[in-house]
C-alpha cells in the first residue's frame, strides 16, 4: 500500500503534471498532422527524455502517446485525413457525420470513447497485467493466422453495397502488401528490380493517398462557385454539437465491447491499434441493431473505432511490463526511454521498482483525465480550421500531407506514392469500389502470410502434419469463440430480417 501511495505521489507532482500536459498538447497537435504517427511522436521525444528527470520524461512520453491517438481522429472526422493509421476506421462514420453538420458531435464522441477506451485498458493493465500477458503469450503462428484470416473474411461486412467490389478491393490491398522482400526467403516480389520497392510500400503514404488525396481530388472537381465556400459547416442546432446522455448510453455497450477487443489485441504483440480499430468497427457493425447506418454517419461506428484504438495504448504495456516484450513500436520506444533511465522492464520490475510501476499507472490515469479536458479545447480550435474555403484548404492539405509522408522515411518516393495512391483511390471512388477494404487487406496480409507460412513449416516437422493446430488449446479456444460469435451474428441477422418482413 505504501508503494501505491508513493507511486501516486511521484506521478502527481506539479512537474510531472506539467510534463503530462505538455506531452498531451504536443501529442494532440502531432497526431493531427497526417503522416506523423503516435510512434513517431514518441520517437521524436525519446532522445530528449535522456536529459530530463525520469518522472518528467516518462509521463511526458505517456501523455504524448495518448494525445496523438486522440488528435489523429480530429482530422479523420473533419477532412477525411486520419492523422495516424489508427484513426483510419474513424473516417468511415466520422466524416459523413461532419458532412451532415455534426462534426462537433462526432469529435466529442471520439473524445469520450477514446478516454473511455484508454481508461478501460489502463485499469485492465493495473489489475490483470499478469493474466492477460499469459493469454497473449499462448498465441503462436497458428492463432495469429486464424485471427487475421477471420478478420480478412469479416471485411465483407465493410464492403458497402457490392460484395464483389469489396473483395476486389481487399485482394488489391493484399497484392500491394506483397510488394517488397519475401518475409521468409527475402526473395524480391513484384519489385521489377526497382530498389525503392524492395522496402515495400509504406502504410503512411498509402493511407494518406487513398483517403486524403483521393477525397481532395474528388472535392476539387466541383464547380468553382462551390469551392469558394468552406469544406464543412457546423449545425447551429445545439443538439447536433453535443453528445447527449441518451446517445452516450446507447453507444456504451459498443464502447465497452470495443475497449475489451482493443485491450485484448493490444496485449498481443505485433497487431496494433489500426487492426484493433477495424476489427472493433466490423464487430460493432455486425452486432448493431442498425447496421445500415454504418458508413453513413453512425455514432456507434465512431465510438467503436476510437474506443478500440485507444484501448491498445494501455494494454500494449501489459507484455512490456510483465515480460519486457513491447506490443508495438510505440511500446518499444517507451521501453527504450525506461532503459535510458536505468529501469529494465520485465517480470522482476514489480519487485525491483514497485514505486515506479505504480507511478506509471497513476500517470496513465491522470493523462486520460487531462486528455479529456484538453481535447475539448482542441475540438473548439479545430472547428475554425475547416472554415477556410475549399480552394485554399485542399492545396494546403496536399502540401502538409506530402511533408508528413516524407517525414517518416525521408524518401521522395513516398511523396510520389501519396499522389499515385490518391489517383488510384479517386478512380476507385469513380468506379464505386470501396477503398477501405484495400487498406485492411494491405495491413493484414504480411501478418497473415508470415504466420501461415510458419504454421505450415511447423506442421511439416510434426507427426500430425498441419493437423497439429488442433492439438493447441489456444487455437481451439479461439476457433470456438469465432464460431460462436459468427453463429450469434447470423442468428441475430435472421431475426432482424424476419422483423423487417413482419413490419412490412
Amino acid at each position: 500500500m505504501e508503494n501505491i501511495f508513493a507511486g501516486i505521489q511521484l506521478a502527481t507532482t506539479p512537474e510531472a503534471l506539467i510534463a503530462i500536459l505538455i506531452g498531451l498538447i504536443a501529442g494532440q497537435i502531432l497526431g493531427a498532422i497526417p503522416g506523423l504517427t503516435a510512434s513517431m511522436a514518441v520517437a521524436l521525444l525519446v532522445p530528449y527524455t535522456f536529459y530530463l528527470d525520469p518522472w518528467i520524461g516518462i509521463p511526458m512520453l505517456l501523455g504524448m502517446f495518448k494525445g496523438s491517438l486522440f488528435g489523429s481522429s480530429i482530422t479523420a472526422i473533419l477532412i477525411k485525413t486520419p492523422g495516424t493509421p489508427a484513426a483510419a476506421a474513424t473516417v468511415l462514420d466520422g466524416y459523413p457525420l461532419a458532412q451532415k453538420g455534426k462534426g462537433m458531435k462526432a469529435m466529442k464522441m471520439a473524445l469520450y470513447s477514446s478516454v473511455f477506451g484508454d481508461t478501460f485498458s489502463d485499469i485492465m493493465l493495473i489489475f490483470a497485467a499478469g493474466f492477460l500477458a499469459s493469454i497473449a503469450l499462448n498465441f503462436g503462428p497458428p492463432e495469429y493466422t486464424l485471427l487475421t484470416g477471420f478478420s480478412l473474411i469479416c471485411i465483407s461486412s465493410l464492403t458497402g453495397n457490392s460484395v464483389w467490389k469489396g473483395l476486389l478491393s481487399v485482394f488489391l490491398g493484399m497484392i500491394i502488401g506483397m510488394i517488397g522482400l519475401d518475409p521468409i526467403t527475402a526473395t524480391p516480389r513484384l519489385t521489377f528490380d526497382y530498389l525503392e520497392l524492395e522496402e515495400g510500400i509504406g502504410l503512411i503514404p498509402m493511407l494518406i493517398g487513398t483517403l486524403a488525396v483521393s477525397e481532395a481530388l474528388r472535392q476539387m472537381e466541383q464547380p468553382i462557385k462551390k469551392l469558394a465556400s468552406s469544406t464543412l459547416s457546423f449545425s447551429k442546432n445545439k443538439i447536433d454539437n453535443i453528445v447527449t446522455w441518451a446517445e452516450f448510453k446507447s453507444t456504451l455497450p459498443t464502447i465497452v465491447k470495443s475497449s475489451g477487443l482493443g485491450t485484448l489485441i493490444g496485449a498481443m504483440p505485433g497487431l496494433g491499434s489500426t487492426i484493433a480499430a477495424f476489427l472493433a468497427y466490423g464487430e460493432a457493425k455486425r452486432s448493431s441493431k442498425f447496421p445500415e447506418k454504418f458508413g453513413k454517419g453512425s455514432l456507434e461506428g465512431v465510438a467503436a473505432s476510437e474506443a478500440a484504438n485507444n484501448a491498445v495504448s494501455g494494454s500494449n504495456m501489459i507484455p512490456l511490463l510483465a515480460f519486457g516484450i513491447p506490443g508495438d513500436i510505440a511500446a518499444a520506444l517507451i521501453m527504450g526511454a525506461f532503459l535510458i533511465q536505468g529501469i529494465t522492464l520485465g517480470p522482476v520490475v514489480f519487485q525491483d521498482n514497485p514505486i515506479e510501476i505504480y507511478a506509471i499507472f497513476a500517470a496513465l490515469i491522470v493523462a486520460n483525465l487531462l486528455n479529456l479536458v484538453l481535447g475539448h479545447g482542441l475540438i473548439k480550435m479545430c472547428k475554425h480550421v475547416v472554415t477556410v474555403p475549399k480552394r485554399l484548404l485542399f492545396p494546403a492539405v496536399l502540401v502538409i500531407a506530402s511533408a508528413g509522408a516524407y517525414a517518416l522515411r525521408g524518401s521522395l518516393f513516398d511523396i510520389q506514392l501519396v499522389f499515385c495512391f490518391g489517383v488510384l483511390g479517386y478512380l476507385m471512388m469513380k468506379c464505386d469500389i470501396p477503398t477501405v477494404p484495400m487498406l485492411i487487406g494491405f495491413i493484414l496480409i504480411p501478418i497473415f502470410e508470415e504466420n501461415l507460412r510458419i504454421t505450415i513449416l511447423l506442421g511439416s516437422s510434426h507427426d500430425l502434419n498441419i493437423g497439429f493446430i488442433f492439438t493447441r488449446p489456444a487455437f481451439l479456444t479461439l476457433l470456438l469463440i469465432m464460431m460462436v460469435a459468427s453463429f450469434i451474428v447470423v442468428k441475430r441477422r435472421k431475426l432482424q430480417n424476419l422483423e423487417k418482413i413482419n413490419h412490412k
Partner: protein
Amino acid sequence: MKINKINHEKLLILGFFSLTLFFIFWIIPKSIIDPINFGIKDGLPPSFSAYLVGFLIFFTLIFQYINGIILKKNNNFQNESLFFSREIFKRSLNIIIVCLVYSFLFIEYLGFYLGSFIFIIILSLLLGEKRFFILSLFPTFLIFFVYVGFNLGFSIFLPEGKILEQILESILVN
C-alpha cells in the same frame, strides 16, 4: 454522357479480368522467382500468396459475371444510368496532372518549399482563386508554418531540390 450501369459493370469486370490474366501469367512469373530447389519441406514458396490472390480475383470476377450479369441476381440497377460530364473530366485531369507534376518534378528539382509554393498558386488558380493578395500571402504563410514545424521543430529536413543543390554546390566551389 450517359452509360447504363449494367454496361458499366460489364466493362469493369472485363477490364479487371484482362488485368488479372496479365497479373497471373506475366507479372508474377516475371517478378517473383522462387529459390532453386525450393521444396514442400521448405514451406510455401514466395510466389504462393501472389498466385493465390490472383486466382481468388479470377474466380470472384467469373462468379460476378455469371451471377450478376448473366443470371442477373442481386442486381437492382438494371435501368439505372451513370452520368459523365466532359467538364468534370477535364477539370479532374488538369488537377491530377498538376498534382503528379508537383510530386514527380517540382519537389525533386525545385525542392519542397519552392515547389510547394508554386504548386499552391497553380492549384488555387485552377480552383478559382484570383485575388493576388491571397495567392501570394497564403502559400507564404503555409510554407513558413511547415518550415517552422518540420525543420525547426522536429529537425525533419524536407528535400531541397536538385537545382538548388547544384546552385549551392557551385557557389561553394567558387
